[in-house]
């Protein structure tokens, strides 16, 4: 037992966690036909039950998942994975019908039924079950109340409410103005833009995977992998000083993580050119600035010519550029993560004079 736990702890780190999340999504997308089977669905649930069941026998694991405000996230993990499986399954079932020349199941259920009783009773039952769950949950688990507020005593770690922990996790890779202001704004703008940039007329009003595979993959990547899995990481696996801790590891305040991050300007001027950093910040950071401009201004144009030409033609210039810019902003997080993991890179552009770091 202990050997298994220390084995898991020894390998667990943000890189592994994130790669596993991305890898699982890739497998689901690639093997969606197989993933849609009931065996996979129940297998997934059984795996989660076993994982948490096993975890509950461990003191440290227990401590973190039974913290009152963390309990909903355990629920979220189950619900989210279940519904991911469930909706992919519904899509695959419809795809099979379509392949066999039949309409999607929702088309067969086009007849009208009476709201009373069909819908009203369903709602009533849902309300009753929901009420029971909330009441039982409320009786079983007391709402937390810690020591009175004390602005002189900072807890370590200090965490935002759980639904913002994905953003807090981004702080590891980006400065607050990006992680806390610009990227959240882009998330909202991006969500709002979805109906206007998705020109695919298919898959409106029924589950399907094949007819919308690209859209669904992108959404699952953003919602399940980036947003939700980083919440899980931030809640369960980030301890004092925002250090990473394995699920069975004790949250040791004195855990040290070597920080030898470098700036791109240092790599280029000092390591590559072997000269001192230029005094003017503009010259010092020029390579980083060019790189960023290249990423957000040149890359979309290049991709329109080669690589994404199909989409450029389908969407037209405005939709294409909005889509690609939103997509590249979403991708900037994994890009920055990789840069950090592979090259210890802290900032691509670093102008502390203007609080402007990327």
């Amino acid at each position, binding site marked *: 037992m202990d050997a298994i736990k220390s084995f898991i702890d020894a390998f667990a780190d943000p890189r592994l966690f994130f790669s596993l999340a991305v890898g699982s999504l890739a497998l689901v997308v690639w093997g969606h036909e197989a993933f849609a089977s009931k065996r996979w669905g129940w297998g997934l649930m059984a795996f989660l039950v076993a994982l948490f069941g096993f975890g509950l026998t461990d003191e440290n694991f227990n401590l973190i998942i039974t913290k009152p*405000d963390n309990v909903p996230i355990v629920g979220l993990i189950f619900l*989210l994975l279940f*519904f991911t499986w469930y*909706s992919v399954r*519904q899509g695959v079932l419809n795809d099979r019908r379509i392949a066999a020349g039949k309409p*999607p*199941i*929702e*088309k067969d259920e*086009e*007849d*009208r039924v*009476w*709201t*009373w009783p*069909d*819908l*009203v009773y369903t*709602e009533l039952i*849902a309300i009753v079950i*929901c*009420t029971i769950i*909330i009441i039982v*949950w*409320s*009786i079983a*688990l007391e709402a937390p*109340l810690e020591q*009175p*507020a004390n*602005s002189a005593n900072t*807890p370590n770690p*200090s*965490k*935002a*409410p759980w*639904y913002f922990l994905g953003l*807090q996790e981004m702080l590891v890779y980006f*400065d*607050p*103005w990006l*992680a*806390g*202001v*610009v990227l959240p704004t882009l998330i*909202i703008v991006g*969500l709002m833009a*979805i*109906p206007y940039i998705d020109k*695919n*007329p298919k898959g*409106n*009003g*029924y589950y399907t995977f094949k007819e*919308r595979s690209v859209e*669904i993959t992108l959404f699952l990547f953003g*919602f399940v992998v980036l947003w939700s899995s980083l919440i899980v990481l931030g809640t369960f696996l980030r301890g004092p000083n925002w250090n990473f801790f394995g699920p069975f590891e004790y949250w040791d305040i004195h855990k040290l993580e070597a920080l030898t991050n470098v700036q791109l300007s240092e790599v280029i001027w000092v390591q590559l050119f072997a000269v001192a950093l230029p005094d003017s910040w503009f010259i010092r950071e020029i390579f980083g600035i060019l790189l960023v401009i290249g990423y957000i201004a040149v890359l979309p144009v290049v991709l329109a010519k080669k690589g994404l030409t199909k989409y450029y033609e389908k969407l037209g210039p405005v939709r294409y550029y909005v889509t690609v810019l939103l997509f590249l902003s979403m991708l900037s997080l994994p890009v920055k993560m990789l840069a950090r993991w592979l090259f210890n890179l802290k900032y691509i552009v670093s102008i502390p004079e*203007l*609080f*402007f770091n990327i």
Partner: protein
Amino acid sequence: MADTKTIAPKDPAFVRAWDWLTETQIWTSIFRHTAPINDRNRVLVMLSNVFLHLHPVRLRKSGVRLRYTWCMGGLSFFLFLQLTFTGLLLMFYYRPTLEYAYTDIVSLREHVPLGIMREMHRWGAHAMVITVWLHMFRVFMTGSYKPPREFNWNVGVIMLVLTLLLSFTGYLLPWDQLAIWAITVGSNMARAAPLIGNEGPLSSLMVLGDVGLVHQADDMRFVLLGGTFVGEGALLRFYVLHCVGFPLVIGFLMAVHFWRVRKDGGISGPL
């Protein structure tokens, strides 16, 4: 010949009582028609009841299936009502001042036997965040944001943001360590807003002549907190937004949302 009186079989007492009750003037003034056991009354019940009239009279079969909607939109709405109700009760006992906020919560814990209102409010709020996410997930997976429902998706996104803001502002109110530090971490972001945050990029360019315009005491974070740190001003601001401001806005948007679900052709289905 002895008289044989035929006695009509009598209905059981409760049936008679029910018949009597439903014929009283009071009852018929409330319910304009009898129970929805025939088609005519199934129409009438939807048209004459203000709560039920949010619904259409009839809807496509796929739309009532749990398989299709997961009931997540409906549950989000129900949880919102549940939170409004439990929140109202909590407001009777909670005063948003540095002096009382924490102790009022302690009293709720210590002095109310079997009290679970605070729990129902807190866990209900967590649950609502989750149901709203799952609702959005379902709407995406059925492609229901596609024309003609683009606008309603957008109303939804704003309500999603408001749901998070409601939860975030509520998090501060118990005024314990958990609360102020979570809000401190969250609101520190505002300090870094480009141009309008005092540690935000380019804020040093916000000058009038040689007077800087953005300082710690007048930047975005200050607006949010009503102060330079999470203190009395922030508590009051968050309280007002949490109990009045955001609920009003989200309630208004829900009305728009439900109206548009109907106007956009009811629950989506294949064309």
